[in-house]
């Protein structure tokens, strides 16, 4: 869940900066605005495709991956840019948090679900797309609007994670768990001995350990989100009172 890091808020007030620095500031702001708007549109398309798929299939999630998959893959992989934004200090997020976030989601999406076709028609895949799309369709507009973000949207952003986060995490775990037999049978992404570097990597073991670690990772991020929620919603409240 990308909620865990500092918001994609562009730096607020340009205090007396040299003209060249001011120009750079404006270019950064314009670029980030375009990026956030682009992502907002992409995930809106993904959400629309997801909803349309569920409705057209009388409530079944089995076609969601087929119908919305292109949008989700494109825009999730493209969000690697956020890691670069953090690395080049265009935004205030810590690079490590942005990277972990992106790697976690993209791993489940590309390395697991996209690579194992049998997983794509499972409810877990469809539900996961729904959860991601709902979150992003709220998050990116709050970044794009930054200081002009309306109070209700901000509230939504910091409240909707409460159900969506566990749903997303459970879906991710289900997908990995269901994929294990295929991973084991095909020795996916694994390197075996013997070799001169005495290096072995068993992807199935890696995923199994990841599944054990997931509840702990989830718990710490979820708790952090509640702390952020308290801070951000209180901030809006006091701003309103001012």
């Amino acid at each position, binding site marked *: 869940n990308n909620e865990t890091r500092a918001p994609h808020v562009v730096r607020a007030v340009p205090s007396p900066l040299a003209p060249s620095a001011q120009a750079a500031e404006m270019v950064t702001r314009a670029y980030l605005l375009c990026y956030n708007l682009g992502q907002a549109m992409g995930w809106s398309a993904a959400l629309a495709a997801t909803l349309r798929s569920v409705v057209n299939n009388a409530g079944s999630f089995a076609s969601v991956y087929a119908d919305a998959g292109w949008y989700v893959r494109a825009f999730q992989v493209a969000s690697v840019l956020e890691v670069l934004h953090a690395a080049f200090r265009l935004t205030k997020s810590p690079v490590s948090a942005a990277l972990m976030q992106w790697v976690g989601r993209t791993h489940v999406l590309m390395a697991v679900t996209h690579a194992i076709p049998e997983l794509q028609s499972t409810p877990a895949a469809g539900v996961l797309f729904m959860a991601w799309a709902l979150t992003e369709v709220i998050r990116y507009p709050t970044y794009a609007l930054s200081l002009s973000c309306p109070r209700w949207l901000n509230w939504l952003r910091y409240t909707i994670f409460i159900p969506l986060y566990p749903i997303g995490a459970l879906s991710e775990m289900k997908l990995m768990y269901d994929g294990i037999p295929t991973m084991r049978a095909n020795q996916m992404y694994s390197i075996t*001995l*013997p070799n*001169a570097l005495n*290096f072995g990597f068993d992807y199935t073991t890696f995923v199994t350990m990841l599944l054990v670690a997931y509840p702990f990772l989830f718990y710490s991020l979820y708790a952090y989100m509640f702390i952020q929620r308290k801070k951000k919603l209180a901030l809006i409240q006091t701003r309103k009172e001012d």
Partner: protein
Amino acid sequence: VFLADTRKAPGTMKLKILSRSGRELVSGGLEVKDGATTDDLKAAFAAKKPKYPPSRQRFTLPVPEGADKKVRGVALDAGKSLSKDYGLQTGSKVCFKDLGPQVPYAVVFLAEYAGPLACYLPFYFLRKEIYGDAMGLPGADAPMLLVQTLAMLFHSGHYLKRILETLFVHHFSHATMPIANLFKNCTYYWCFAAIMSYFINHPQYTPVGHSQMVAGFAISALMQLGNLHSHVYQSSLRADGSKTYKEPKGGLFRYVTCANYTCEIYNWVGFNIATQSVWGWVFALCGSAQMVAWANAKHRRLKKLFPGFSRAFKILPPFY
């Protein structure tokens, strides 16, 4: 008129103990003697609030009004007089921070270092059971190669040395560290010991040439001795029982700020040259990265404490 605050015994002062958010933690203030030290303050606070033993307490002077959010208040150090060193008197405010549950340094180190022994040795001594019976791999009952036996001896010897140093050599600056460190450090040491051991003792392990193996273990042995020598020297700086920092000047410390880390890093380099496994190198890299960070901090601290301090290298001759 509420007189509680002004009532106090003569020769004492009443300090206002505040939390980070400004809430008063001890109603009416905490009473300490005029000549009290930081340690006395901590003892008094612990008496009032037994949940916070002294090792868990950190007191700082309040940050001045309007200062930048990132500025941290001046910490009250052990052994210093509250009135003379920090100018505190009745009514003065101090901020309290809970450092969280603490565990003694020695406990952490012993757990960290005993674990790797328990994690490494089974793959060597129970090779047939683990690789053969449990995993069904061929060749699990073949005799161990010389390099595998030496690796086991060097790895175990290293951690035994660390345990003995923790018990008999080191003098720690702080008594405790946060308990989270215990879990973090143990996970790191134990997991890497197990992973390295798994691949080195594997029936399909590919050994390097004989000369490379000898060279690697020779470097490792030499560096372990160097590391021991550095630790004994560092320990001698605190032979008087004090916990303050002294400038290390003897032995390799004449040329390298953190000669002990140097020897540790090159010890693992030697080990990996001899055993050649990717996970072994990853372990050496992770440890080195952490030690470089520590070396930078140590170098900065020594520069601040001892004006004019400089050394040819910080941690890794001939590179850095």
